Protein backbone atom coordinates (compact mmCIF):
# COMPACT_ATOMS: atom_id res chain seq x y z
CA UNK A 1 0.00 0.00 0.00
CA UNK A 2 1.36 3.39 -0.91
CA UNK A 3 0.14 6.37 1.05
CA UNK A 4 1.05 9.26 -1.18
CA UNK A 5 -0.35 9.96 -4.58
CA UNK A 6 2.54 12.28 -5.43
CA UNK A 7 6.08 12.25 -4.17
CA UNK A 8 5.83 15.76 -2.76
CA UNK A 9 2.59 15.35 -0.86
CA UNK A 10 2.27 12.77 1.89
CA UNK A 11 -1.13 11.35 2.65
CA UNK A 12 -3.54 13.25 4.87
CA UNK A 13 -2.88 12.80 8.60
CA UNK A 14 -5.97 10.64 9.07
CA UNK A 15 -4.75 8.21 6.41
CA UNK A 16 -1.31 8.10 7.98
CA UNK A 17 -2.83 7.30 11.37
CA UNK A 18 -4.93 4.55 9.84
CA UNK A 19 -1.84 3.07 8.24
CA UNK A 20 0.07 3.17 11.54
CA UNK A 21 -2.83 1.63 13.43
CA UNK A 22 -3.12 -1.14 10.86
CA UNK A 23 0.37 -2.41 11.68
CA UNK A 24 0.59 -5.66 13.57
CA UNK A 25 2.99 -4.64 16.34
CA UNK A 26 3.93 -6.95 19.19
CA UNK A 27 2.95 -4.30 21.74
CA UNK A 28 1.49 -0.81 21.93
CA UNK A 29 3.47 2.26 22.95
CA UNK A 30 1.27 2.71 26.01
CA UNK A 31 2.02 -0.85 27.12
CA UNK A 32 5.74 -0.35 26.53
CA UNK A 33 5.81 2.87 28.57
CA UNK A 34 3.86 1.10 31.32
CA UNK A 35 6.85 -1.21 31.83
CA UNK A 36 9.11 1.77 32.67
CA UNK A 37 9.35 3.75 35.93
CA UNK A 38 7.45 6.53 34.15
CA UNK A 39 4.35 4.36 33.85
CA UNK A 40 2.92 6.83 31.37
CA UNK A 41 4.26 9.76 29.43
CA UNK A 42 3.59 13.06 31.19
CA UNK A 43 5.00 16.49 30.56
CA UNK A 44 7.28 18.47 32.80
CA UNK A 45 7.55 22.26 32.77
CA UNK A 46 7.58 23.84 29.31
CA UNK A 47 11.22 24.57 28.54
CA UNK A 48 11.00 24.97 24.78
CA UNK A 49 8.51 26.59 22.48
CA UNK A 50 8.95 24.95 19.11
CA UNK A 51 7.26 26.94 16.38
CA UNK A 52 6.74 25.47 12.94
CA UNK A 53 6.51 28.63 10.87
CA UNK A 54 5.38 26.90 7.70
CA UNK A 55 5.86 24.06 5.27
CA UNK A 56 7.59 25.96 2.48
CA UNK A 57 11.08 24.69 1.77
CA UNK A 58 13.61 24.96 -1.04
CA UNK A 59 14.21 21.20 -0.68
CA UNK A 60 11.97 18.18 -0.89
CA UNK A 61 13.68 15.51 1.19
CA UNK A 62 12.56 11.90 0.89
CA UNK A 63 12.33 11.36 4.64
CA UNK A 64 10.66 14.68 5.57
CA UNK A 65 8.08 14.20 8.31
CA UNK A 66 6.55 17.56 7.42
CA UNK A 67 6.12 16.84 3.73
CA UNK A 68 7.70 20.23 3.10
CA UNK A 69 8.59 21.54 -0.33
CA UNK A 70 8.68 24.53 -2.68
CA UNK A 71 5.00 24.30 -3.56
CA UNK A 72 3.66 24.28 0.00
CA UNK A 73 1.69 27.37 0.90
CA UNK A 74 1.32 27.06 4.68
CA UNK A 75 2.97 30.09 6.33
CA UNK A 76 2.49 31.24 9.92
CA UNK A 77 0.35 34.42 9.82
CA UNK A 78 1.23 37.61 11.69
CA UNK A 79 -1.24 37.15 14.54
CA UNK A 80 0.19 33.70 15.32
CA UNK A 81 3.77 35.00 15.18
CA UNK A 82 2.80 37.79 17.57
CA UNK A 83 1.10 35.38 19.94
CA UNK A 84 4.10 33.05 19.93
CA UNK A 85 6.47 35.88 20.74
CA UNK A 86 4.19 37.11 23.52
CA UNK A 87 4.03 33.68 25.09
CA UNK A 88 7.77 33.20 24.74
CA UNK A 89 8.69 36.51 26.32
CA UNK A 90 5.95 36.83 28.94
CA UNK A 91 6.03 33.26 30.23
CA UNK A 92 9.78 32.96 30.73
CA UNK A 93 10.16 29.96 28.44
CA UNK A 94 13.94 29.72 28.04
CA UNK A 95 14.19 28.19 24.55
CA UNK A 96 12.76 29.03 21.15
CA UNK A 97 13.10 26.31 18.51
CA UNK A 98 12.22 27.55 15.01
CA UNK A 99 11.45 24.90 12.45
CA UNK A 100 9.58 24.43 9.16
CA UNK A 101 9.88 23.86 6.14
CA UNK A 102 12.85 26.11 5.80
CA UNK A 103 12.10 28.60 8.58
CA UNK A 104 14.35 31.19 6.94
CA UNK A 105 11.73 31.56 4.20
CA UNK A 106 9.23 33.06 6.65
CA UNK A 107 8.94 36.79 5.99
CA UNK A 108 9.37 37.61 9.71
CA UNK A 109 12.14 35.11 10.41
CA UNK A 110 14.72 37.74 11.33
CA UNK A 111 12.28 39.71 13.45
CA UNK A 112 11.31 36.59 15.39
CA UNK A 113 14.96 35.95 16.13
CA UNK A 114 15.89 39.46 17.18
CA UNK A 115 12.84 39.68 19.46
CA UNK A 116 13.60 36.38 21.14
CA UNK A 117 17.32 37.09 21.39
CA UNK A 118 16.69 40.53 22.89
CA UNK A 119 14.49 38.86 25.50
CA UNK A 120 17.44 36.62 26.39
CA UNK A 121 16.03 33.42 24.99
CA UNK A 122 18.18 30.65 23.57
CA UNK A 123 17.17 30.43 19.92
CA UNK A 124 17.62 27.40 17.68
CA UNK A 125 17.22 27.61 13.91
CA UNK A 126 16.56 24.22 12.30
CA UNK A 127 18.34 24.94 9.07
CA UNK A 128 18.57 22.82 5.93
CA UNK A 129 21.90 24.53 5.09
CA UNK A 130 21.27 24.97 1.36
CA UNK A 131 18.97 27.94 2.00
CA UNK A 132 22.04 29.84 3.21
CA UNK A 133 23.55 29.56 -0.28
CA UNK A 134 20.54 31.15 -1.98
CA UNK A 135 21.45 34.77 -2.91
CA UNK A 136 18.65 36.39 -0.91
CA UNK A 137 19.70 34.55 2.26
CA UNK A 138 23.50 34.65 2.13
CA UNK A 139 23.60 37.35 4.80
CA UNK A 140 21.99 35.02 7.34
CA UNK A 141 25.11 33.32 8.74
CA UNK A 142 26.37 36.66 10.07
CA UNK A 143 22.89 37.66 11.25
CA UNK A 144 22.46 34.36 13.09
CA UNK A 145 25.91 34.67 14.64
CA UNK A 146 25.28 38.25 15.76
CA UNK A 147 22.15 37.04 17.59
CA UNK A 148 23.90 33.99 19.12
CA UNK A 149 21.45 31.64 17.44
CA UNK A 150 22.27 27.95 17.63
CA UNK A 151 22.16 26.69 14.07
CA UNK A 152 20.89 23.12 14.00
CA UNK A 153 21.70 21.77 10.55
CA UNK A 154 20.56 18.66 8.78
CA UNK A 155 23.38 16.60 7.33
CA UNK A 156 22.58 12.90 7.25
CA UNK A 157 26.08 11.72 6.36
CA UNK A 158 29.54 13.01 5.59
CA UNK A 159 29.42 11.77 1.97
CA UNK A 160 27.61 13.15 -1.05
CA UNK A 161 26.21 9.79 -2.09
CA UNK A 162 24.14 9.25 1.05
CA UNK A 163 23.23 12.90 1.59
CA UNK A 164 22.03 13.48 -1.97
CA UNK A 165 20.07 10.21 -1.99
CA UNK A 166 17.97 11.54 0.85
CA UNK A 167 17.94 15.29 0.29
CA UNK A 168 18.35 15.78 -3.46
CA UNK A 169 21.07 16.01 -6.09
CA UNK A 170 23.79 18.50 -5.27
CA UNK A 171 22.59 19.11 -1.72
CA UNK A 172 25.79 17.81 -0.15
CA UNK A 173 28.07 20.22 -1.99
CA UNK A 174 25.81 23.17 -1.23
CA UNK A 175 25.62 22.07 2.40
CA UNK A 176 29.41 22.08 2.59
CA UNK A 177 29.43 25.56 1.10
CA UNK A 178 26.93 26.69 3.76
CA UNK A 179 28.95 25.10 6.55
CA UNK A 180 32.03 26.99 5.36
CA UNK A 181 30.02 30.23 5.37
CA UNK A 182 29.00 29.48 8.96
CA UNK A 183 32.58 28.66 9.93
CA UNK A 184 33.75 31.95 8.43
CA UNK A 185 31.55 33.96 10.81
CA UNK A 186 32.67 31.95 13.83
CA UNK A 187 30.28 29.00 13.98
CA UNK A 188 31.78 25.75 15.18
CA UNK A 189 34.82 27.32 16.84
CA UNK A 190 36.01 25.94 20.13
CA UNK A 191 35.18 29.17 21.97
CA UNK A 192 31.57 27.92 22.04
CA UNK A 193 30.04 31.32 21.28
CA UNK A 194 28.32 30.30 18.05
CA UNK A 195 26.99 26.77 18.28
CA UNK A 196 26.82 24.75 15.09
CA UNK A 197 24.97 21.50 15.64
CA UNK A 198 24.78 18.85 12.94
CA UNK A 199 21.82 16.48 12.83
CA UNK A 200 22.45 13.07 11.28
CA UNK A 201 19.64 10.69 10.49
CA UNK A 202 19.89 7.31 8.75
CA UNK A 203 19.60 7.20 4.98
CA UNK A 204 17.30 4.21 4.94
CA UNK A 205 15.37 1.80 7.13
CA UNK A 206 17.78 1.35 9.99
CA UNK A 207 18.58 2.97 13.33
CA UNK A 208 21.17 5.71 13.79
CA UNK A 209 24.75 4.84 14.67
CA UNK A 210 25.87 5.64 18.23
CA UNK A 211 25.97 9.42 18.47
CA UNK A 212 29.47 9.79 19.90
CA UNK A 213 31.03 7.42 17.33
CA UNK A 214 29.33 9.17 14.45
CA UNK A 215 30.37 12.57 15.77
CA UNK A 216 34.01 11.44 15.72
CA UNK A 217 33.64 10.21 12.13
CA UNK A 218 31.94 13.37 10.93
CA UNK A 219 34.55 15.54 12.62
CA UNK A 220 37.45 13.69 11.07
CA UNK A 221 35.93 13.36 7.59
CA UNK A 222 34.55 16.90 7.30
CA UNK A 223 37.78 18.40 8.60
CA UNK A 224 40.03 16.26 6.39
CA UNK A 225 38.05 16.45 3.17
CA UNK A 226 36.34 19.83 3.41
CA UNK A 227 38.02 21.86 6.15
CA UNK A 228 34.69 22.16 7.98
CA UNK A 229 34.31 22.40 11.77
CA UNK A 230 31.21 22.01 13.91
CA UNK A 231 30.34 22.14 17.60
CA UNK A 232 28.51 18.85 18.10
CA UNK A 233 26.55 16.20 16.26
CA UNK A 234 23.24 14.69 17.30
CA UNK A 235 21.51 11.67 15.82
CA UNK A 236 17.80 11.37 15.12
CA UNK A 237 15.88 8.28 14.03
CA UNK A 238 13.56 8.61 11.07
CA UNK A 239 9.97 8.90 12.17
CA UNK A 240 7.54 6.52 10.45
CA UNK A 241 5.17 9.22 9.25
CA UNK A 242 4.61 11.33 6.13
CA UNK A 243 7.13 10.91 3.30
CA UNK A 244 9.28 8.48 5.23
CA UNK A 245 6.30 6.23 5.95
CA UNK A 246 5.43 6.38 2.28
CA UNK A 247 8.99 5.39 1.37
CA UNK A 248 8.88 2.53 3.90
CA UNK A 249 5.70 1.27 2.27
CA UNK A 250 6.96 1.59 -1.28
CA UNK A 251 10.25 -0.11 -0.46
CA UNK A 252 8.59 -2.94 1.50
CA UNK A 253 10.38 -1.98 4.72
CA UNK A 254 7.49 -0.90 6.95
CA UNK A 255 6.88 -4.08 8.96
CA UNK A 256 10.54 -4.80 9.57
CA UNK A 257 11.37 -1.19 10.49
CA UNK A 258 8.47 -0.95 12.90
CA UNK A 259 9.36 -4.32 14.44
CA UNK A 260 12.88 -3.02 14.93
CA UNK A 261 11.64 0.17 16.61
CA UNK A 262 9.43 -1.85 18.94
CA UNK A 263 12.05 -4.47 19.79
CA UNK A 264 14.62 -1.71 20.42
CA UNK A 265 12.35 0.11 22.89
CA UNK A 266 14.52 1.65 25.60
CA UNK A 267 12.71 2.85 28.71
CA UNK A 268 15.68 5.02 29.69
CA UNK A 269 15.38 6.87 26.40
CA UNK A 270 11.77 7.74 27.17
CA UNK A 271 12.81 9.88 30.13
CA UNK A 272 14.19 12.62 27.90
CA UNK A 273 11.97 12.60 24.84
CA UNK A 274 11.27 16.10 23.61
CA UNK A 275 7.50 16.02 24.12
CA UNK A 276 8.01 16.08 27.88
CA UNK A 277 9.30 19.65 27.97
CA UNK A 278 8.37 21.08 24.58
CA UNK A 279 5.23 22.58 23.13
CA UNK A 280 4.88 22.43 19.38
CA UNK A 281 3.01 25.20 17.55
CA UNK A 282 1.62 24.66 14.07
CA UNK A 283 1.77 27.41 11.43
CA UNK A 284 -1.87 28.26 12.20
CA UNK A 285 -1.31 28.44 15.97
CA UNK A 286 -2.63 25.00 16.96
CA UNK A 287 -0.74 23.39 19.86
CA UNK A 288 0.60 19.83 19.96
CA UNK A 289 2.74 17.69 22.22
CA UNK A 290 5.44 17.43 19.56
CA UNK A 291 6.22 18.16 15.93
CA UNK A 292 5.40 14.58 14.93
CA UNK A 293 1.98 14.62 16.59
CA UNK A 294 1.46 17.92 14.83
CA UNK A 295 2.01 16.33 11.44
CA UNK A 296 -0.42 13.56 12.34
CA UNK A 297 -2.85 16.17 13.67
CA UNK A 298 -2.88 14.24 16.93
CA UNK A 299 -4.37 16.72 19.39
CA UNK A 300 -3.43 17.05 23.03
CA UNK A 301 -5.48 14.84 25.30
CA UNK A 302 -8.30 15.96 27.57
CA UNK A 303 -9.08 19.27 25.93
CA UNK A 304 -5.94 21.17 26.81
CA UNK A 305 -5.65 24.59 25.20
CA UNK A 306 -5.91 24.02 21.49
CA UNK A 307 -3.98 27.04 20.29
CA UNK A 308 -1.28 29.52 21.19
CA UNK A 309 -3.86 32.21 21.97
CA UNK A 310 -5.04 30.16 24.94
CA UNK A 311 -1.58 29.10 26.11
CA UNK A 312 -1.50 28.20 29.80
CA UNK A 313 1.85 26.90 31.01
CA UNK A 314 0.55 25.80 34.41
CA UNK A 315 -2.26 23.82 32.83
CA UNK A 316 0.11 22.18 30.38
CA UNK A 317 2.55 21.13 33.12
CA UNK A 318 2.02 17.47 34.03
CA UNK A 319 -0.41 16.73 31.22
CA UNK A 320 -0.60 13.22 29.80
CA UNK A 321 0.96 13.19 26.35
CA UNK A 322 -0.87 11.80 23.34
CA UNK A 323 1.02 8.78 21.98
CA UNK A 324 0.78 6.38 19.07
CA UNK A 325 2.81 3.73 17.24
CA UNK A 326 5.10 6.39 15.75
CA UNK A 327 6.36 7.21 19.27
CA UNK A 328 8.53 4.09 19.15
CA UNK A 329 10.70 6.16 16.80
CA UNK A 330 11.79 8.34 19.73
CA UNK A 331 12.50 5.52 22.19
CA UNK A 332 14.38 2.98 20.07
CA UNK A 333 17.98 2.18 20.97
CA UNK A 334 19.80 5.25 22.20
CA UNK A 335 16.58 7.24 21.79
CA UNK A 336 15.88 10.13 19.50
CA UNK A 337 14.70 13.63 20.13
CA UNK A 338 15.12 17.12 18.73
CA UNK A 339 18.19 17.23 20.95
CA UNK A 340 19.50 13.93 19.63
CA UNK A 341 20.07 10.68 21.50
CA UNK A 342 18.30 10.61 24.86
CA UNK A 343 20.10 7.69 26.49
CA UNK A 344 23.54 6.14 26.58
CA UNK A 345 23.86 2.82 24.80
Amino acid at each position, binding site marked *: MTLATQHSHPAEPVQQMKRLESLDLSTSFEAAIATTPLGELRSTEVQTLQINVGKRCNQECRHCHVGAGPDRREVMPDEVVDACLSVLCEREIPNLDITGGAPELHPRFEEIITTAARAGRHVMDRCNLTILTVPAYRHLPRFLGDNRVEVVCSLP*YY*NARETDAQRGDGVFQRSIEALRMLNEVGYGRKDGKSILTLVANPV*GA*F*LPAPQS*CLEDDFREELRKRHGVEFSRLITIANMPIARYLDWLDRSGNTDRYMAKLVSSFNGAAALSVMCRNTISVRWDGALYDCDFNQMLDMKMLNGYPGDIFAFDGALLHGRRIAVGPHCFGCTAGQGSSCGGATANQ
Partner: protein
Amino acid sequence: MSRPTRNHEYHYDASDLDRFAEIGEAAPDLARKFFDYYGAVFAEGALSEREKALIGLAVAHSIQCPYCIDVYSTKCLEKGSNVEQMTEAVHVATAIRGGASLVHGVQMRGHVDRLSM
Protein backbone atom coordinates in the same frame (compact mmCIF):
# COMPACT_ATOMS: atom_id res chain seq x y z
CA MET B 1 3.33 -23.06 21.01
CA SER B 2 2.21 -22.95 17.41
CA ARG B 3 4.93 -22.50 14.83
CA PRO B 4 4.70 -20.32 11.77
CA THR B 5 4.34 -22.24 8.55
CA ARG B 6 7.53 -22.68 6.61
CA ASN B 7 8.01 -22.86 2.87
CA HIS B 8 9.72 -26.21 2.34
CA GLU B 9 10.34 -25.54 -1.34
CA TYR B 10 13.48 -23.60 -0.46
CA HIS B 11 16.46 -24.42 1.72
CA TYR B 12 16.64 -20.83 2.94
CA ASP B 13 13.67 -18.92 4.37
CA ALA B 14 14.39 -15.30 5.41
CA SER B 15 11.83 -15.52 8.21
CA ASP B 16 13.88 -18.30 9.83
CA LEU B 17 16.24 -15.64 11.11
CA ASP B 18 13.54 -14.28 13.42
CA ARG B 19 13.16 -17.79 14.81
CA PHE B 20 16.82 -18.30 15.63
CA ALA B 21 16.12 -18.43 19.36
CA GLU B 22 14.00 -21.55 18.82
CA ILE B 23 17.25 -23.45 18.45
CA GLY B 24 17.41 -23.29 22.25
CA GLU B 25 14.30 -25.44 22.65
CA ALA B 26 16.56 -28.46 22.34
CA ALA B 27 19.88 -28.41 24.23
CA PRO B 28 19.02 -25.12 25.97
CA ASP B 29 22.21 -24.98 28.03
CA LEU B 30 24.37 -25.13 24.95
CA ALA B 31 22.23 -22.50 23.23
CA ARG B 32 22.46 -20.20 26.23
CA LYS B 33 26.23 -20.57 26.34
CA PHE B 34 26.46 -19.91 22.63
CA PHE B 35 24.28 -16.78 22.70
CA ASP B 36 26.05 -15.42 25.78
CA TYR B 37 29.37 -15.97 24.07
CA TYR B 38 28.08 -14.45 20.82
CA GLY B 39 26.91 -11.31 22.62
CA ALA B 40 30.22 -10.97 24.44
CA VAL B 41 32.22 -11.35 21.23
CA PHE B 42 30.46 -8.43 19.56
CA ALA B 43 30.56 -6.06 22.52
CA GLU B 44 32.92 -3.08 22.42
CA GLY B 45 36.40 -4.24 23.42
CA ALA B 46 39.89 -3.86 22.01
CA LEU B 47 38.05 -3.61 18.71
CA SER B 48 35.10 -1.26 18.28
CA GLU B 49 31.61 -2.57 17.59
CA ARG B 50 31.88 -1.08 14.12
CA GLU B 51 35.12 -2.92 13.37
CA LYS B 52 33.60 -6.15 14.61
CA ALA B 53 30.53 -5.63 12.45
CA LEU B 54 32.72 -5.14 9.37
CA ILE B 55 34.66 -8.31 10.21
CA GLY B 56 31.31 -10.09 10.66
CA LEU B 57 30.20 -8.85 7.26
CA ALA B 58 33.38 -10.09 5.60
CA VAL B 59 33.14 -13.48 7.27
CA ALA B 60 29.44 -13.72 6.36
CA HIS B 61 30.42 -13.42 2.71
CA SER B 62 33.25 -15.85 3.10
CA ILE B 63 30.99 -18.51 4.57
CA GLN B 64 28.19 -17.38 2.22
CA CYS B 65 25.52 -17.24 4.91
CA PRO B 66 22.52 -15.25 3.61
CA TYR B 67 21.18 -14.69 7.13
CA CYS B 68 24.50 -13.31 8.32
CA ILE B 69 24.85 -11.09 5.24
CA ASP B 70 21.50 -9.43 5.98
CA VAL B 71 22.22 -9.10 9.69
CA TYR B 72 25.72 -7.71 9.31
CA SER B 73 24.80 -5.39 6.44
CA THR B 74 22.22 -3.79 8.72
CA LYS B 75 24.57 -3.81 11.68
CA CYS B 76 27.33 -2.10 9.69
CA LEU B 77 24.94 0.67 8.64
CA GLU B 78 23.75 1.05 12.22
CA LYS B 79 27.33 1.42 13.37
CA GLY B 80 27.91 4.24 10.89
CA SER B 81 29.69 2.41 8.07
CA ASN B 82 28.88 3.23 4.47
CA VAL B 83 28.55 1.05 1.41
CA GLU B 84 32.08 1.83 0.20
CA GLN B 85 33.58 0.62 3.47
CA MET B 86 31.31 -2.44 3.49
CA THR B 87 32.24 -3.30 -0.09
CA GLU B 88 35.93 -3.08 0.77
CA ALA B 89 35.31 -5.48 3.65
CA VAL B 90 33.71 -7.92 1.21
CA HIS B 91 36.76 -7.57 -1.05
CA VAL B 92 38.98 -8.48 1.89
CA ALA B 93 37.00 -11.70 2.28
CA THR B 94 37.15 -12.27 -1.45
CA ALA B 95 40.90 -11.69 -1.62
CA ILE B 96 41.55 -14.13 1.20
CA ARG B 97 39.25 -16.74 -0.31
CA GLY B 98 40.85 -16.27 -3.73
CA GLY B 99 44.32 -16.20 -2.25
CA ALA B 100 43.62 -19.38 -0.34
CA SER B 101 42.79 -21.11 -3.62
CA LEU B 102 45.73 -19.65 -5.44
CA VAL B 103 48.30 -20.47 -2.78
CA HIS B 104 47.28 -24.11 -3.09
CA GLY B 105 48.68 -23.82 -6.60
CA VAL B 106 52.07 -24.15 -4.95
CA GLN B 107 50.99 -27.56 -3.68
CA MET B 108 49.83 -28.39 -7.18
CA ARG B 109 53.18 -27.36 -8.60
CA GLY B 110 55.04 -29.43 -6.00
CA HIS B 111 52.96 -32.47 -6.83
CA VAL B 112 53.52 -31.94 -10.54
CA ASP B 113 57.25 -31.62 -9.88
CA ARG B 114 57.25 -34.94 -8.05
CA LEU B 115 55.48 -36.68 -10.90
CA SER B 116 57.31 -35.04 -13.72
CA MET B 117 60.66 -35.74 -15.35
